[in-house]
């Protein structure tokens, strides 16, 4: 085992990530076996894979965003409802107010970014605890989204309609010949944000201030800008996630979205991002998202309700946080 850990290729990818990929593959076959044992339709179909990926796309953007916030040592509980708020406002504009699609997509991103700005300002400049501010903006997002659409749900256009081309962002074509554009975009976005986190000044300062904000401040760095930036990126990505959500599912209901927060945060923690800040991995988050999506799909395929998924996600979060704390204790 030690020898395997010391292998240069293993070290490069990261032992924890290899374990996660192993878990992902194991889960796939486990769900397959369970479905077969329960006499349900086969889990090993392309349709199942696409369905799981639909869930992974929007979840991926949410999780990447919240990875930045957690890297600063903060938390954002508003991303799910902010995503829905974005989708509701822009969708209402598109379907009821005849605003062109491209403008609506931009509006979606702007709405998310505004929530990010609010959270970032309150946390970084007014020193409010992120736990509370993001709870508050979660309620704001739910209320505003719902008020804007007069508590109606919004159905974005189908792919066959004129304004339905946005769905190509998720998938082009149908059946086995379909191109999973969503996966390509998410993968590219993951790489870009991984580079931002690891290779740029913003990422460097975000990780450092997550580890010891006061030491960074006393080095003459304006920590507030960088801390706020993490929340702004997170909000912006929630706005982008909205596009991929409606691209996959078309319909959004007001007053919902909080369950996605927990799953996005769970993805981060599973992927090795430390809840106490300073350590974060976009690649880990990416794999974490795939696991969450697989879980969702597997539970569904077995014919269980979403509550089973909550139970399992809850257990996973506890295990992941426990592993994080243990490895931290060993380091000190």
């Amino acid at each position: 085992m030690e020898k395997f850990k010391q292998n240069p290729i293993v070290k490069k990818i990261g032992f924890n990530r290899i374990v996660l990929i192993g878990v992902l593959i194991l889960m796939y076959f486990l769900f397959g076996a369970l479905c077969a044992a329960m006499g349900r339709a086969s889990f090993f179909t392309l349709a199942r894979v696409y369905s799981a990926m639909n869930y992974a796309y929007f979840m991926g953007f949410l999780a990447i965003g919240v990875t930045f916030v957690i890297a600063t040592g903060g938390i954002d509980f508003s991303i799910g409802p902010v995503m829905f708020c974005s989708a509701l406002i822009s969708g209402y504009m598109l379907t009821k107010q005849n605003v062109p699609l491209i403008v609506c997509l931009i509006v979606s991103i702007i709405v998310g970014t505004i929530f990010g700005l609010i959270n970032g300002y309150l946390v970084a400049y007014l020193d409010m605890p992120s736990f509370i501010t993001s709870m508050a903006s979660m309620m704001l997002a739910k209320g505003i989204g719902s008020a804007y659409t007069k508590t109606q749900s919004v159905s974005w256009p189908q792919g066959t309609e004129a304004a339905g081309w946005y769905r190509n962002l998720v998938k082009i074509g149908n059946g086995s010949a379909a191109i999973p554009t969503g996966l390509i975009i998410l993968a590219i976005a993951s790489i870009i944000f991984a580079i931002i986190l690891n290779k740029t000044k913003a990422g460097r300062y975000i990780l450092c201030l997550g580890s010891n904000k006061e030491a960074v401040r006393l080095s003459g760095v304006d920590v507030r800008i960088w801390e706020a930036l993490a929340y702004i990126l997170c909000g912006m990505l929630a706005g982008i996630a909205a596009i991929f959500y409606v691209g996959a599912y078309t319909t959004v209901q007001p007053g919902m979205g909080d369950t996605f927060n927990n799953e996005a945060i769970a993805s981060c923690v599973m992927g090795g991002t430390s809840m106490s800040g300073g350590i974060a991995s976009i690649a880990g988050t990416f794999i974490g998202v795939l696991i969450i999506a697989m879980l969702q799909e597997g539970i569904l395929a077995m014919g269980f309700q979403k509550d089973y998924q909550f139970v399992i996600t809850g257990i996973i979060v506890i295990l992941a946080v426990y592993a994080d704390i243990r490895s931290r204790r060993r380091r000190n």
Partner: protein
Amino acid sequence: MGDIILTMKGIDKSFPGVHALDHVDLEVRKGEVLALMGENGAGKSTLMKVLTGIYKKDEGTITYEGKEIEFENPRAAQAAGVVIVHQELNMLSHLTVAQNIFIGREIMNGQIINDEKMNEESVKLFQKLGIEIDPKEKMGNLTVGKQQMCEIAKAISHDAKVIIFDEPSAALTEAEIEELFKIIRDLRDKGMGIVYISHRMDEIKVITDRVTVMRDGTYVGTLITKDCTKDDIINMMVGRVIYEDPKTQSAVAKDAPVVLKVEHLNAGKMVRDVSFELHKGEILGFSGLMGAGRTETARALFGADPKEGGDIYINGEKVTINTPMDAVNHGIGYLSEDRKRYGIVVGKSVAENTTMATLKEFMSGLFINKKKEDEVAWKYVESLKTKTPTVDTEVVNLSGGNQQKVVIAKWLTRNCDILIFDEPTRGIDVGAKSEIYTLMNELVAQGKSIIMISSEMTEVLRMSDRIVVMCEGRKTGEIDIAEATQENIMQLATQRN
């Protein structure tokens, strides 16, 4: 003075790398106030912690009421009647006075807490002390002085026979101190043994019967207070032995330009009207006792804490410093006394910490130029002789001295001309210490200027060209190194209003 109630004999205690107590003796009698004195780090607090079971002693015996004992923990010590009134009050401000006094041993009525009974008992305690405090008042609403009284009430409620006061007067006003002394005399007259730890020379003369002096973890001696002078005590505290050669003459030219001038700096209670000048190539020592306001002065100057007033001139030009960023932009670097909290990011690498203040210069477009960053980090690892396997090693894995070098590298990379070294050798072993000293001398030889805050007298006398002494947030004097002695520094450091 009565019989001996407590004897500590040959108490020895080592921590990794530090011999904190070297066969220390202490004797407390019934009905006396014994002062325990010594410089910062002399071992007073450690000795009291050994007594009350917070630390385990390595050697020695403690005899209490004629029996040899060793308390398992402070609770056991309390139960036996040995209690400490801490300098930092351990109070829960949102609970009532009575609830605080009886915390951990609430008077119960079955499973319900009996607040009424606790209030009654508190009143009885206050009556014993001859003071009046409403037991139903929230602790947070009381003045610090009254809170201290409650702490004392709590102590005597344990049926205390020995009470240790750890710098009780630090936060009190004159009137409150008067009242405190009245209570202490009262307790003494009731036959309790009292240990009084304080730096305030005048108080020692007023309130104590005997003085035991410690220095560098050793027992120096005990004097009868009324037969000795302040100077006798100071001489015992500083000792005649000087371990390292002090500087005899300033290395700074008489006409060296002033690089930093601070005028009438005010910030909170701990920085009151502080003015001083720093010359090019000078090491300006800041001496004083714990809580003299030296770190607070440095932090206010650096923009780390808000200021209420004061002017700062750099190279003759007036500047505004409101944040650390302003200070750094004006070429000031600050090495904190608390490295792990304020100096380095322990979870990050040597290279990342080195470029923390200068990241802008290591960018190639949008990206950090890792190669250039590593080169500079290596350059300083080599020139400062930092012991680290690679520059990618997390600084948490480095020793204290090497961590300090990483912080120094950070400011050297920034090319700061004014460096504030706040306790630069705290928690650093002897070898690394002299390396840091050599480095500081090299830096001033290169034309940089250093403000060095230090609680170690020998360090101050060895490194400084000039010494500013502070006491209670005020600058009480300035001494050229040629005239500086341990005695005159200590004199200024204890010169209170």
